[in-house]
């Protein structure tokens, strides 16, 4: 199967190479995106097939190509973990490609998008397949480069150029960190093949360094706080279908990198690893959602939610590490399943949401929620699918987002069995932060959906928006359906993940499809269980019945009238709540702590005829405290050294002379 997969990836690369030729012609878009769609769909099928095979204890496939390092070759391998992420990658890829068939029509600079889109997909696929450090890093950085080029597609706007720059530098920083990790694992004689690394058992401190490096490397790509700074800049800057890929899929590839290193290559974890990962994950989750609440740019808000969800995933991974260190296999399996499940879920609903945002963007040309509103009337389908996505990401039953977070909570509840006191105390606190993040996410998406799609239009463009084309809608509907499906019959996903989890932590969850009524029973019957199907049927059925009953037995009379609004209805759309005003209470509560938020009201004196203004200043503490100082230090050093460039020749000669004398002297006094 692996050769076939490779062939498909090569097709993607070929499409990337041929794209520039067709990019400017009308045929270019359908050709490239059509090819991408076909390939990713095929890859998705193959990946699922492989995953099913591994459930049947099939051995992982591997092969070596005469590429890359001459004496090593390019090792490729497809195991359960790889297959799962391959499926995630190509699911998102297929959705984005299909969407782009329609969305691409509005692209201003197709020649800057078409060549890099398939390359990006190919890069992500290769990362998941790579089985030696060199191939992995090549694929990894290739992925970064392609996505950077896509971010720079609309390079005219200065914001994007800055975004691209920060992104590329951070990406390379991450690559370097991964390089460090691999270098430490490979040892001086450079055994770069993953197989060799699995065999090697590094010293504890080396392993610790590797984990730290992996956390930095993968985290900077996934968007862990404080390495997230590039993400909310870069993801929105790209065309929407690319944003969907970057947020929904590429961050997952980063998660894959961490899982591969921490669980597969690195051997037995130490307890403090899980503390580090847990703490980072929790901080990331809460900070991410708080950042998101402060945004009124729709796509940036979504990007910050990616940060939040990555935090949730890492909480799951941290728990898994902790349980594995304590040797509680089944609990580790539970936590890891939860994390991977959330990976899939986030890929589903974040892609969906970004596609929706793209639809809004094409329909109105607006990303700023303050200029949107009332779109539910103009774009019913987009609104409906976006609503599903919003409910899913807010972890509301019976949708998929809830299931994974519920599983993580179940894992948190196992914490008393952990031996370390530190972890015992940390885990419940992390659970609280997770709950806080989930609740805030709900608030944030009430804002996102309510301000964008509900209420009255806040601008002419929003008033005359048109529903997007079918090609764009199809993937959104499909993703929404998948969100519901994964929430209603989570057993399928959990059982599908079983081989992956077994391969990594030894244990696995009990087979869920055997449980009556498709309930989910992660640990034991008496402990906890959940059944999304029943909830869905009950709520839907009961709601329908109630509606029918009320309409029948009571009245169905309905009168349309102006809004009541306590008797003071105002026609002007400016009287509505805005995104900013919606977030104001939360800003008041959390903002001072998280953003040094500062509000100043500029109230005109009585009799003065000008609008009162509310100025809000938010500082990004991470940016101020970490990135700006580093940049300043670098520039200062540059200025300092720059003086050396303006000496006279005689002084340069003196430098040479001095160096010579120093060397001779050392040689003279050398023992």
């Amino acid at each position, binding site marked *: 199967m692996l050769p076939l997969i490779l062939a498909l990836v090569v097709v993607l690369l070929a499409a990337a190479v041929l794209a520039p030729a067709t990019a400017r012609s009308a045929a270019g878009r359908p050709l490239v995106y059509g090819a991408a769609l076909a390939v990713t769909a095929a890859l998705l099928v193959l990946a699922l097939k492989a995953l099913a095979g591994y459930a049947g204890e099939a051995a992982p496939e591997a092969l070596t190509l005469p590429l890359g390092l001459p004496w090593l070759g390019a090792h490729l391998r497809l195991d359960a973990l790889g297959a799962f992420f391959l499926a995630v990658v190509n699911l998102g890829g297929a959705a984005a490609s299909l969407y782009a068939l329609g969305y691409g029509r509005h692209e201003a600079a197709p020649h800057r998008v078409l060549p890099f889109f398939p390359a990006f997909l190919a890069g992500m696929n290769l990362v998941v397949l790579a089985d030696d450090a060199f191939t992995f890093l090549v694929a990894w950085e290739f992925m970064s480069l392609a996505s950077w080029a896509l971010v720079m597609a609309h390079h005219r706007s200065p914001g994007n150029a800055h975004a691209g720059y920060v992104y590329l530098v951070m990406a390379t920083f991450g690559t370097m960190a991964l390089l460090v990790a691999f270098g430490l694992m490979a040892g001086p004689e450079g055994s770069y093949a993953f197989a060799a690394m699995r065999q090697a058992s590094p010293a504890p401190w080396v392993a610790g360094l590797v984990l730290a490096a992996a956390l930095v490397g993968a985290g900077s790509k996934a968007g862990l706080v404080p390495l997230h700074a590039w993400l909310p800049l870069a993801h929105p800057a790209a065309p929407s279908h690319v944003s969907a890929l970057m947020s929904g899929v590429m961050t997952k590839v980063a998660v894959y990198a961490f899982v591969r290193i921490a669980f597969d290559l690195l051997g037995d974890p130490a307890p403090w690893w899980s503390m580090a990962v847990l703490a980072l994950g929790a901080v990331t989750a809460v900070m991410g959602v708080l950042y998101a609440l402060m945004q009124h740019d729709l796509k940036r808000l979504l990007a910050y939610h990616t940060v939040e969800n990555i935090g949730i995933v890492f909480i799951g991974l941290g728990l898994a590490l902790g349980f594995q260190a304590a040797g509680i296999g089944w609990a580790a399996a539970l936590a890891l399943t939860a994390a991977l499940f959330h990976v899939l879920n986030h890929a589903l609903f974040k892609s969906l949401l970004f596609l929706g945002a793209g639809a809004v963007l094409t329909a109105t040309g607006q990303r700023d929620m303050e200029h949107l*509103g009332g779109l539910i009337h103009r774009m019913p389908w987009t609104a409906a699918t976006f*609503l599903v996505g919003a*409910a899913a990401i807010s972890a*509301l*039953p019976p949708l998929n987002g*809830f299931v994974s977070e*519920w599983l993580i*909570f179940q894992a948190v*509840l196992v914490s*008393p069995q952990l031996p370390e006191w530190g972890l015992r*105390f940390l885990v419940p606190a992390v*659970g*609280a*932060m997770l709950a806080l993040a989930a*609740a805030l996410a*709900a*608030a944030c*998406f*009430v804002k996102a*959906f*309510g301000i964008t799609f*509900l*209420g009255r239009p806040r601008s002419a463009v929003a008033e005359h928006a048109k529903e997007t084309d079918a090609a764009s809608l199809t993937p959104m509907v499909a993703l929404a359906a998948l969100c519901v499906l994964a929430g209603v019959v989570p057993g399928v996903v959990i059982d599908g993940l079983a081989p992956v989890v077994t391969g990594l932590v030894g244990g696995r969850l009990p087979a869920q499809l055997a449980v009556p*009524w498709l309930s989910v029973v992660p640990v034991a019957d*008496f*402990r*906890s*269980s*959940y*059944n999304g199907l*029943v*909830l869905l049927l*009950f*709520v839907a059925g*009961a*709601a329908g019945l109630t509606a029918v009953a*009320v309409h029948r*037995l009571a*009245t169905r*009379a*309905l*009168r*349309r*009238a*102006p*809004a*009541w*609004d*306590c008797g003071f*209805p105002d026609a002007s759309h400016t*009287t*509505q*709540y805005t995104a900013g*005003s*919606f977030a*104001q*209470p*939360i800003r*008041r*509560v959390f903002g001072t702590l998280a953003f040094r938020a500062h509000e100043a009201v500029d109230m005109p004196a009585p009799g003065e005829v000008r609008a009162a203004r509310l100025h809000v200043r938010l500082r990004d503490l991470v940016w101020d405290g970490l990135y700006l100082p580093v940049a300043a230090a670098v520039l200062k050093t540059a200025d300092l050294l720059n003086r050396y460039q303006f000496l006279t020749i005689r002084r340069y000669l003196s430098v040479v002379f001095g160096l010579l004398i120093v060397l001779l002297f050392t040689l003279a006094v050398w023992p």
Partner: protein
Amino acid sequence: MSAAATNALVQAAQLVLVPALAPLLTGFVRKVKARLLRRRGPSLLQPYRELARLLRKEAVVAENASWLFRAAPYLVFTAIWAAAALVPTFAAGLVLNRAADLIGIVALLGTARFFLALAGLDVGTSFGGIGASREMLIASLAEPAMIMLVFTVALHAGSTQLPWVAAHMAGAGVGLHVSLALALVGLLMVALAENARIPVDNPATHLELTMVHEAMVLEYSGRHLALIEAAASLKLLLYVALVACVFAPWGMAPAGAGAAACALGAVAFVAKLAGAGFLLAVFETSIAKMRLFRVPDFLGAALMLGLLGTLLLFVSRSL
């Protein structure tokens, strides 16, 4: 009669009983409050009458309201109904208790709130906005607190399934635990916030700037409003049932018990409701509503109680 069948029956009974009793509880609380204020107050059945009246009235909907606005009341009501149907009231054996554990119940309430808040934003009035944004603020603090309390209880009982929790609590093994006491206090605080009671919110006020829940549903009328009112009282009953089930599971009929036990359980439950309603009324009349931005401190305290509860639990466990 097989256990499954009895469970099904019990479940059915509960499905009917819960919405039926909810308005009564609300009426009872109002009555007691009026009494405490030396008023005669409306009759216990007044809430039923109001519901009936609203149901018969025609619904007036703003011109620009979307389908969401009209669908929300049904969703909210049924979501809360489902949640309430899953909390053992008079008997533990519920056939549906597999569907959602304690966390699931909390999340169901979250779903209801989510759609209600959206509905508040739908018409695009300032009051709807105020209500929605404040509601979400309170929720974003109340939910984590609730989850922490759930943790305390669940870690204690080794389960998040309410019947098991109830059984564990009723069992002999449970002494008087500090952590449980903390959990109880915290749960009561969250319950007050979630049900928009004094001191967090005032169900009776229409002074715009102080109201939260009422502002959110300001645009509703007729049958929609009826459903929302019903849902509100249902929610109150749910929390009472929850507290009762976890901290006072006495008299509750165990799974698969006979009719007599169920009847006894029902009586016990009604008694619990009455007691809770009375306490609530006394509390509400004896305390003033707090400013909105004091609410975070209030709920933060609840959250801290929950966290403290879990940690103390570890300590006591390890001793």
